[in-house]
């Protein structure tokens, strides 16, 4: 079993690992500290391994743990994984943080497996017993990690496929894959005596298919709609000219969180503009908006035709002698529809020569005055 010295050093190694993870999570972009902590962890881990193997230098303990008639021990993959981890970490230091973290993960995984395997192989002369001892110690760590990797192998490629194909094809692929998994599950349940090789073969073929599809999907990139929608600014249309895209995500504005607390609702009713402020019953033509605060209002068109609401909120000096009018707007919306407009005004309205107003382009003499304290 573990010796006193190795217990201490393993504890310090574990603590260093926790500190390293916390450091990486909390300290943004500080690679130097992470390398220092990883070095401490490795050094202490190495000492822990040495202490474990030489039984704290206690010759008697070592002799009893490794009898002369012990079965020969097979080769191990973990030294190779550990070495690869160190190399990848080195590459990561000069290339990218992610590569460094991958190397670190391989190093930690390989090192832990190596130490546990080495220790278990000296537990007794019975290899079966040694394997069970190893399993008891390492399976609680191995299984969740392997399960997460297994899930990622399926989920990541599948998500790439779904992002690459069109919406309709995506729905069909989803239904088909779901049906195949369901049918496969039913068959396996009904035929418990099915040959193991067939089951493994089918699962492997499915996994290979998904991974291949994922690679193809990632190579093809996202479908055009997603690319265009990503390039749009959903909630703040800086320009109030031509509509931007047919892929504008109107649904995003239907979220409860966005629609539950607008400061005011501005209605365009029969060609007249009026505002209804939260908490006040009667409509008004003068509303107050809090300064330097993200604010949402709802524009509701109740007039025949397509209209948009525009907010004018002063001017901004872009360079000496050149000022730019600040405005934002909704898209054109049809009668009976409504749209959310989210904006932020940083300058008080008293600082502006022009009053701040909401208006509907093309409609004269209809505006809502905006006061920003």
């Amino acid at each position, binding site marked *: 079993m573990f010796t006193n010295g190795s217990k201490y050093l393993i504890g310090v190694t574990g603590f260093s690992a926790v500190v390293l993870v916390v450091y990486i999570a909390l300290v943004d972009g500080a690679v130097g500290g992470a390398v220092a902590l990883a070095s401490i962890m490795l050094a202490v881990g190495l000492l822990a391994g040495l202490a474990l193997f030489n039984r704290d230098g206690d010759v008697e303990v070592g002799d009893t743990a490794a009898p002369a008639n012990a079965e020969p021990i097979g080769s191990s993959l973990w030294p190779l994984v550990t070495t690869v981890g160190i190399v990848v970490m080195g590459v990561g230091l000069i290339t990218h943080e992610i590569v460094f973290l991958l190397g670190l993960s391989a190093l930690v995984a390989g090192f832990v497996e190596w130490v546990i395997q080495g220790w278990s192989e000296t537990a007794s002369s019975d290899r079966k017993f040694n394997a069970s001892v190893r399993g008891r110690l390492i399976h609680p760590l191995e299984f969740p990690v392997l399960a997460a990797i297994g899930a990622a192998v399926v989920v990541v490629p599948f998500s790439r496929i779904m992002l690459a194909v069109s919406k309709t094809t995506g729905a069909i692929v989803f239904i088909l894959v779901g049906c195949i998994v369901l049918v496969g599950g039913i068959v396996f349940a009904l035929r418990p005596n099915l040959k193991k090789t067939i089951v493994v073969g089918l699962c492997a073929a499915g996994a290979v298919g998904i991974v291949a599809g994922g690679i193809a999907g990632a190579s093809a990139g996202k479908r055009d709609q997603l690319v265009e929608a990503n390039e749009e600014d959903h909630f703040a249309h800086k320009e109030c000219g031509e509509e931007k895209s047919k892929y504008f995500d109107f649904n995003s504005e239907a979220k409860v969180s966005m629609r539950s607390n607008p400061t005011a609702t501005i209605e365009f009713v029969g060609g007249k503009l009026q505002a209804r402020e939260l908490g006040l019953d009667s409509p008004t033509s003068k509303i107050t908006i809090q300064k330097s*605060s*993200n604010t949402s209002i709802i524009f509701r068109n109740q007039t025949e035709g397509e209209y948009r609401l525009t907010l004018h909120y002063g001017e901004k000096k872009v360079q000496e002698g050149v000022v730019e009018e600040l405005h934002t707007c909704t898209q054109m919306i049809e009668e009976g529809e409504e749209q959310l407009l989210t904006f932020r005004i940083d300058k008080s309205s008293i600082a502006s020569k022009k009053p701040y107003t909401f208006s509907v382009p093309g409609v004269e003499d209809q505006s809502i005055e905006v006061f920003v304290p």
Partner: protein
Amino acid sequence: MSKWYSVPTSKTARRLVAAAAGLAGVAFLSGCASNAPQDTWQPKGPNAEKIDDLQRPVFAIAGIVGVIVFAAIGYAVFKYRDRGQPIPEQSHGKPVLEISMTVLPAIILAAIGVFTFQTIFDLAKTDDTEMVINVTGQQWWWEYDYPVQEQYGITDPIITSGQLVIPAGTKVLLRETSRDVIHSYWIPALNGKRDAVPGRVHTLRLEADEPGIYAGQCTEFCGLSHAAMRMEAVALDRDDFAAWVKGQLSLAASPADGTLAKEGEAVFLNQCIRCHQVNGLKRADGSPAIAAPEDNVWSGAAPNLTHLMSRNTFAGASWDLLTKGCRKDVWGSPSQEFGEKYLAGVTEDCLNQNDLRRWLRNAPAMKAMYADPTKLEKSGGKYRGMPNLGLSEDDIDKLVAYLATLK
């Protein structure tokens, strides 16, 4: 016969027991404090009364249950204490007891739940609102702005801070938001607490039965000076409120030439106007002086000081503008005299010059703020709070004289 209890014998143990008993005693006796403006058991308005009507029976039920549970545990611990007896026979359980112990709490919680939901829905009503006030939190003060409501004489928006002024006996709806982090607005005597969240508008009903001042405090940890982010709600009767509105709608008048206050106005224009607005203040060339807190302060806002001396507090309601005696006089006045005393504002005799001067001399020394100019990289060079302006004593004299004119 051996004693069933033991007395700690070591000196350290005795001290620990004495300290624990002392702390428990202080905690117990603090419940008897008479000067406790944030006492949750003294509602002064219908919304707080609704909460009180719920919390008293719930507290009583919880107390009874607590006493029963602790008595049962105490009895079991004493009766079955280790006296060297063999371990009793282990049973798998008592279904009747277990079911009762599950069903009874479930019934109690369900009953409390019904009344709790009813109270929550009552407190969330907005359709009977008589007045609306916007409340904006930022590190570490509250801004209040009153949208146009002509029935109260508010013909133009009003902006103030520190003290929320409301008409007594009126259903006021606060529309809360925040400019930086999450804060929480709480005037215990008038209602429960409600978070002010950036980008959202949360509503809170307030109504005071009688004219008076009701104290509160930010109750969501919001950074360095969270503990010093206080507020006061001032309720005035309708006539006094109308007078207050009239006062707030006026612009600040420039002090007479040749006075110390006039010199203070120049200091204000040179230093304070970067963040603090005074409506009506003009520069030497006659153009309006406009503050630009958005360029200097992280939250993008600083208190409007147009009617500073109409309030009783400053710096996030953490310090009084009134001297102790004058403040006591206002706070302790009967409700029928309160309005007149409050509307008198901060007179020259009552101005708490000590704290105001200390604040002007070195604000961050009084209230912890992120105001060290050498440590503003993360906020893009903007302050969170008021920096030390390095004013000379002469400038402070002038500024105090000028601020005293902002009635």
